[in-house]
C-alpha cells in the first residue's frame, strides 16, 4: 500500500455537505489517499486540476455551470490518462454511456459513498 501513499484526490461537488462527506471518508480511510483540493464548480475544478495535478478526480455530474461530463471532457482533452470517477446522485444510462465514451474510469452513485476509497485505490494510476 505504501506505493499509493501519494494518491491525491480532487473533489468536485457543488454541495458543501457532499464535499465534506467525501473528504471525511477519504481522510478516515487514510490508506495512501489524501485530498489534494476541493472545487464547487467546473471552472474552479479545471483550475485546481491544472494546479494540483491530482492522481484522481471525483466529479459530481450535476453542478451549476459546466456539468461533470463537460469538465471531464475538458480535462481528458488535455490529459487523456487522467483518472476520473463520476460521482452523482442520479446516474441515467445516457450519462454512463457518455462517460464511458469520454474515458471516465467509473461512475458511482452517491449512495455508494462507503465504496469510494476502494474505487479510488482501484482506479488510481500506478506511481
Amino acid at each position, binding site marked *: 500500500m505504501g506505493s499509493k501513499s501519494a494518491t491525491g484526490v480532487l473533489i468536485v461537488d*457543488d*454541495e458543501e*455537505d*457532499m464535499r*465534506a*462527506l467525501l473528504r*471525511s*471518508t477519504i481522510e*478516515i480511510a487514510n490508506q495512501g489517499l489524501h485530498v489534494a483540493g476541493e472545487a464547487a*464548480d467546473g471552472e474552479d475544478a479545471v483550475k485546481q486540476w491544472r494546479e494540483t495535478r491530482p492522481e484522481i478526480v471525483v466529479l459530481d455530474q*450535476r453542478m*451549476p*455551470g459546466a456539468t461533470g461530463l463537460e469538465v471531464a471532457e475538458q480535462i481528458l482533452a488535455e490529459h487523456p490518462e487522467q483518472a476520473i470517477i463520476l460521482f452523482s*446522485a*442520479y446516474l441515467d444510462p445516457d450519462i454512463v454511456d457518455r462517460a464511458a465514451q469520454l474515458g471516465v474510469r467509473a461512475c458511482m452513485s*452517491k*449512495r455508494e*459513498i*462507503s465504496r469510494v476509497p476502494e474505487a479510488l485505490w482501484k482506479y488510481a494510476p500506478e506511481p
Partner: protein
Amino acid sequence: MAATIGRGLGAPIYLGRVTGLLDGAVADDSASLARVAGPLPSNGVVGTIALAKVDGTRVVVTAEVPAASPALAVGTDLAAMPANRVAFDLARDDGTPSLADAQRSATGETSALIAYPQYGSPSIPATTEDRRGKVQGYLVALVTPRPVVELSLTGEALKTTGITITDGPQQLYASPAAMASSARRSLVQRSVPLANHTWTVTAWAGPGAVPSHPPWWAIVLAVLAFLASGVGLTAILRSASRESRAREQERAEEVRLIADAGPLLQQSLDLGELLPDFAVQLAAQFELDRLGVAVANDDGELVDTFSIGPAPGPRRLVRQVGPTTDEVEPGDDFVIPLQRTGRTVGALRARSRRLLERPQLASLRAVSDLLAAALGNAQLYQREQETVRRLRDLDRMKLSFLSTVSHELRTAVAAIEGFGSLLVEHWPTLADEQRREFIDRIARNAGSLKRLVDDLLDFARLERHALTVSPRLVSLSDMVRQTVEQFASLLEQHHLALNIKPDVIAFTDPDAVERILGNFLSNAAKYAPPDTAITVTVEPSGSRALLAVSDQGPGIPAEERTRIFTRFYRSETEATHRTRGAGIGLAIVKEFADRLNASVAVDTAEGGGARFVALFPTEPGMLAETEMSGRAVPDLVE
C-alpha cells in the same frame, strides 16, 4: 297606327344601337361608321349621324353617314357653336347623351344635336375627372322633329291638326294647321324627356277636324311622345346596357378576386402575411381610398390591426353596412362587422371614392365573411399554439421539477446516510469534534429533507384542492419568534437579526405562517452569502400585520418578482443555479397567502438583497391587500 308606332320606335333604338356597337371607340372614316350604322331610320328623325373627335377644344367631324351631308360635314368643328359646346361638355362630364338647344339650319329645318360621349373603352370612367381626361369623341346625330310628324300623319290629318313641339320657349316645329289657326279645341299636351331636355308636344283639333273617341291627334301625340321619349329612353337603355356590361365585367373581377382570395384567406393561419397584399387588391378593385381591419381583443374591444390609406377624421360619421344597405355614397366612411357564429370577431372599415351599390356591398360583405372566417381560424390557431406552448413549458418545468426534487432528495439522503455510516463504523476512532460535525450535518440535511417533503405534501394537497387553513387571531410576534428558533440550524452560517415589535396581532393560521416564514428563511439562507445578515421583521403596517425577511444576497430581478411565486418556476439567475430548490416553495407560500387573505411580494432590501414580505389581516373579513408596492411597504421599495 301600329305601323306608325313601329316606325317611330325604329329611330331612337337605332341611335342607341350604334353607340353600343361603337363600344366607346371613335371611328376615323365614314365607311367604317356606315358599316356600323347600317341604314338610317326611315322616319327621318335622325337624318345624319357622325363621329366627331376631340381635338383640344375642338370637336371635329371625322366620319359621317350619309357621306357629304351638309349638316355634319367632315372637318366641321361642332364645338364652335356655343349650344353644341354646352351639350358636349355635359355629355362628357356625365357620361350620358346630351341634347343641344335646337337650331335652325340654312334650309329652315330645326334640329337639335344629340351627343353620345365615347371614351375609347366599353365602360364609362368612374369620376368626372377621369371622364374629362379620357373622352375621345362623340357619336352625334341631328334630331329633327318635322319628318317624324309629317311622315307619321296623313296629309288630311296634318291639315286639320294643330301640332307644335317646343323646347321651353323655343318652338321646334309647328304644323301648317297650327300656324293657320289660333283656336285650340280638344287640346292635348305631353312632356317628353329627351336626354337632358324636355320637349313639349301639343296637339289640338284644328279647323275641319272631326272629333272622335279617342281623339286621333291624341293617339298621334302618344306616338310622338313615345317616339321622342324613345330617343332618350333608348339612349339611356343602351347606355345602361353598356354600363351593365361594364358592371358585369366589374362583378366578374370582384368575384374572381374573392374566389382567388377565399382559399388563401381560409387556409392561411398567418393573416399578418396575407392581409396587406389582399387589402391592396381589394382597395384597387372597389376604389377604396381607406381600408382597415380591426380585430376584437379578449375584452371584445376592436383594435386596429391593419390599415391602408388615411385614418378617418375623429368626427366622421361611420355607416354600418348590413344586408339591407342599398348604397354607400362616395367619401362616406363605412364599417362592415366581421361576424362568426353570431359573435363579432372584428370589423372591416373603409371609405370608397365611388358610389357603392348593392352588388358591390354584397361583394364586400362576402369578403368580410371570408375575413371573419380567416380571423377566427387564425385566432383559434394562435390560441392553440399558446396552449401548446404553455403545456410544453409546464411539461418542461415539471420534468425539471421531478429531476430537481429527485436530486434534492438523493443528495440529502446520501449526506445523512454517508455521515451516519461514518459515525456507525468509525465511532470509536472519531474525535468529539468530528462526531459533532457529522451529527450537525445529518440534522441540517434532515431539516432540508423535512422542508422538501413538507413542500411536496403541501403541493400534493394543493393539486387535489385540499390545502386548507384555519385562521384565528394570534400574536404574530410570538409565533415568529418561536418559528425562527426552529430554523436555527438552517441559519447558523448567517447573522440572524430580529426586529420583532411586541404584540403584533394577525388573523391567520399558525401552521401556514410557519410554512411561509420557513420558505422565506430557507430562501434567504440559500441565496445570501455566509456571514451576512438575515433580518426578520414583524410590525404593524397600516391596518395589517407585516412579516418580512430581508437578506444581503443578490436580490431578485424586478422582472422575475411576480413569476417566482409561480409553480415550478426557478429564476434564471446564476444564484439560483448555485442553490438547491424544487421551485414549489414560493408557489405554496402564495397559495397559503391567498387562502388567508394575506399578500406576499418580494422587493429590494436595504443594501440590495431580497426582501420577502407577507401582509396579514388583523381581523376577520379583511380582504387581501392588492397594492403592496409603494403603499404598505413604502420605505424599502426601490
